[in-house]
């Protein structure tokens, strides 16, 4: 019997995992990428090779507004909860009552679709709570500007607790002596935040921000429930556009081509994340 080397043994252990990866991730992914080069319908049998025509169609039209919407949503739904989460984490770390941590986590434990329906009723133009409270008759979800803001607010409500908890965990690893030493040296609260807290938190804050950015770049449920990508396509992001093209338009060719472009952009973000993680 010939013994296996450590490398061979490692490969052997990985084989089932690799097989599963190939079967349920790599194969469908490659199959989808290949489909992007065909005119293929979900309902009509057969397909026709069209080369880069699907990509050309998209880059000549739908891709750019969808990219803009995705970036607006992603930036808004990342920056706002990040700032809010950071502020609350600082407040909790500075001595805000502990039970508030549990209270603030509440929106995060509610399923995303439930949160979306909740806000759908809040924003409803005809019988929504918001208009009732403000005494207005604004169509929050029916106008391009307010619809995107409404979607971002909803996503902010759902995701700031996670950021708060992660950042609070980071703050709690910070040695108190650093702050005490800075205070003895005469640094005020703002200076201590700038010169002690921010440098200490840089790593974790960057990871939290980047992860949330990547997730928001792929986000679907809040947008789909609240606006379905409307009004007039004003909140149509990549996730909604791919879904609509594939399952409403039955156009697998364009849907997978759009998915391919979307994935390329996500890969760029992934590179940033992995580089940050490696540091």
């Amino acid at each position, binding site marked *: 019997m010939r013994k296996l080397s450590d490398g061979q*043994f490692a490969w052997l252990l990985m084989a089932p995992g690799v097989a599963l990866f190939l079967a349920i991730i790599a194969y469908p992914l490659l199959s989808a990428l290949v489909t992007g080069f065909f005119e293929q319908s979900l309902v009509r049998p057969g397909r026709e090779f069209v080369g880069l025509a699907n990509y050309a169609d998209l880059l000549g039209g739908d891709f750019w507004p969808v990219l803009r919407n995705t970036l607006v949503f992603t930036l808004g739904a990342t920056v706002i909860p990040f700032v809010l989460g950071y502020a609350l984490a600082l407040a909790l770390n500075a001595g805000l009552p502990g039970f508030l941590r549990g209270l603030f986590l509440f929106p995060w434990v509610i399923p995303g679709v439930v949160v979306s329906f909740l806000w759908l009723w809040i924003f409803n*133009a005809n019988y929504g709570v918001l208009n009732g409270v403000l005494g207005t008759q604004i169509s929050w979800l029916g106008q391009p500007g307010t619809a995107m803001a409404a979607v971002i607010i909803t996503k902010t409500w759902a995701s700031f607790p996670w950021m708060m908890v992660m950042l609070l965990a980071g703050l709690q690893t910070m040695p108190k002596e650093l702050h005490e030493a800075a205070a003895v040296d005469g640094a005020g609260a703002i200076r201590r935040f700038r010169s002690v807290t921010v440098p200490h938190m840089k790593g974790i804050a960057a990871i939290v921000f980047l992860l949330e950015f990547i997730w928001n770049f792929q986000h679907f449920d809040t947008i789909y429930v609240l606006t379905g990508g409307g*009004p007039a396509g004003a909140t149509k992001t990549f996730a909604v556009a791919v879904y609509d093209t594939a399952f409403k338009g039955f156009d697998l060719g364009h849907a997978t081509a759009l998915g391919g472009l979307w994935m390329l952009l996500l890969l760029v973000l992934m590179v940033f994340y992995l580089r940050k993680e490696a540091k």
Partner: protein
Amino acid sequence: MNTLNRRDALRLLGLSTLGVAALAACAPDASGGGAPQGDTAAKTFGFTSWSLNEEAQKAAVQAIVDDYAKKNGVTITPTSFPYNEYLNQVTLKLRGNQLTGAIQLDVAWLGAMAAMGKLRDLGPVAGKGGYTDVALASGQVGGKQLGLPWTTGSIGLIANTELLEKAGVDGMPATVEEFEAALRKIAKLDGVVPYAAATKAAQLKDILPWMRTFGSPLLDGEEITVGDEPSVAAVEWYKKLFDAKLIAPDVDRFDARALFAQGKAAFYDDAIIARGVVESQAPDKTLTTKMAPLARPVLKAGDTPQALLWGHVIAVVEGEGADAAAEFASFATSDTATVASFFEKVKLPPTTTAGLADPKVAGDTFTTEWTEKITKTASANPFWRYAGYAQIETAIAEQVQAVLVGDASAKDALAKAAETAKGLQK
């Protein structure tokens, strides 16, 4: 622990590769093709239906299934998905050859399902069913009878007569001008939306009958006429109602039903099932007695009122159990006692002459009024013949919404919608 030899290692790797190959082989054919398989004479078949997922209809449909299975010694395996997910699920399963037997379909979906080439032509079965011509037509695609009509109705206008009286509207408006005048009177009532018309993209296809009302055929032969003068005029009129707050923003069918059920909308568009829906939602239990179907107002006296044909059919997937499934479909849709009993329970009108003449159906005033005023002149959406009909409707709806929110003029928006729609006529 690390004493496995190279041969064993290669075996394991080989098995892993075989596993991948097997999984890949189980995956649906990428092109969606594949001939139907299985014994067509088998006595076991499936029945896929969204009604089995809906509380209001579940028991009535299950009773039909159980009754038929008992009488005919067959085994029927029911499957259901929620209506909003139904088309996707059925499409994916049919594409992967994972669906057999009978399937309930909305008439709007039949064209897309037909494109997959897996449905049986039920012409011979339909011939002995006694269906009305309108109903039969709702199940036909490309000259083939791909669905047996289960219920045929229409989507039309419903009014709250109490609100009309309060606003001083005498009689039902018959022309667009009278309709607009009525809406302006109703607008003076506090907290009432005069017309809960669709303004969300998901339901803005409701504007298509209004485009027809203004004289656009929507489709002339194979040429899309959306963007012609009448359709532009219809959208401009809709925008005028929107700006004057005679129709409300942010409304789809569910919102419209909720507003109407609360007595906060005077008119809205719905199918005949509206009565049951409103009955279950309305705090005022007498509201259903104040509901009245009306013919869609016409542009000028003498025009034909427009309404959208609507209904369900039962189709049969070619392959395993198809013969028995076709017989079941025929029984469920044309056996007079069965369809009359089904109507009694769920108020969906039957599709056969005998069924419509049954006292249980003929004696129902709301249904007969609906049939006379709305269904009588209803016609199918001409885009349903295309597999990409939903995307065509979406393209139009999104552009109409762009007009409503002030992003585009009706002329530019509809020209853009027509351009997009032309690429989807496949």
